[in-house]
């Protein structure tokens, strides 16, 4: 084809569709981040630990715990501790460390005991963490 191409936009219909998607993603991501920055004041992370189901396996008990951060910033190196108590007496403890628990997010951890946690009082707590 020796015919000279007319000078015009050579972006096809499909490409404009993809470009529109890109624009939407960009506007949404920038808008969301800016909105988040404006509406969320920073503060310390607040870690809440909740017990989920437990499984018995080969004579030991594994308790799944849900670790939620209800605070205003991400916590790193979060240490979770569970203590099995019979009244005031502590029978055994188990601990787990989570690399990161971002704000408003949930992570899972597992604590292992040799005694049945259903028969005793299981006290769960977040020991502490560091700022990332």
């Amino acid at each position, binding site marked *: 084809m020796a015919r000279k191409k007319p000078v015009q936009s050579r972006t096809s219909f499909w490409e404009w569709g993809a470009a529109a998607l*890109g624009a939407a993603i960009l506007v949404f991501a920038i808008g969301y981040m800016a909105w988040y920055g404006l509406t969320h004041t920073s503060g310390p992370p607040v870690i809440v630990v909740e017990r989920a189901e437990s499984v018995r396996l080969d004579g030991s008990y594994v308790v799944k715990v849900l670790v939620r951060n209800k605070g205003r910033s991400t916590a790193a190196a979060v240490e979770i501790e569970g203590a099995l108590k019979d009244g005031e007496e502590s029978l055994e403890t188990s601990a787990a460390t989570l*690399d990161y628990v971002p704000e408003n997010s*949930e992570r899972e951890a597992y604590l292992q005991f040799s005694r049945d946690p259903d028969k005793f009082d299981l006290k769960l707590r977040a020991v502490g963490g560091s700022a990332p």
Partner: protein
Amino acid sequence: MAGKDAAVEADTGSTREFLVGLGRAFAGALIFSLPLMMTMEMWSLGVYIDPFRIALLLLVLLPLLVGLSLFGGIRKNTHIVDDLADALMAIAVAAVAAIVVLAMFAEIDPSMSWREIIGKIALQIVPGSIGAMLAQNQLGGSAEDTDEYGFSDAYGGEILLMMVGGLFMSLNIAPTEEIILIAFKMSTWQDIALAFLSLGLMHIVVYVVEFRGTHAQHPEESFFSVFARFTVVGYAAVLLVSLYILWTFGRLEGLSLEQALSLAVVLSFPGAIGAALARLIL
């Protein structure tokens, strides 16, 4: 009827062209962003760095991509809107690639907050879209109105290309803990020596060794002219890009000026090599 057939033919032709371009863009996005999608620090950075800095990074990305399309690229766009369309398409491709791969790696899932998911994806859009942009521009196709390497010779274009090359290398290294460890171990004299080594290597790689695709020194240009206009300016640009990335990633917090500069010099070393080889790798 004949006219209609021709129109349909032209349309299917452009659809095919679009799909080929899309495939190339995905390939480029993956090759540039996969190493970072498999870097642990990138996941956590997406979560905890300042949301305004993520927003700013995405804002800066768009003109950078448009610039890449303007100065680089096989496809010589007649309208700047075509460059803009290319840039936005690269962002869409990078975002889709990041969503798919991160979901497969279980790095994004519904139990996570929107902030976490969007933060992780947003950071991966940066390397991914640069890769997608370059792949759309560079892989295959035929060149018109560009020099034999596919790039125009404009000075601004050359500096921009060096910045993108530096950015690409810096992005891959800035998230790691090692960069901080290296900077803290180095003495001030080693920092200064590294800055000179970076400058020297940059100049040698670009103007002396003459890799295919690098800038050959014109006979009429003096050493000092080329060194001052390209190498020094390029290194300064890389240093600024490094500082910007370190700031975005929150790596400069609580550091003294000396430590911050040391980090920037360390990061600019690979950045300078990336900038020097930009024409080769990009």
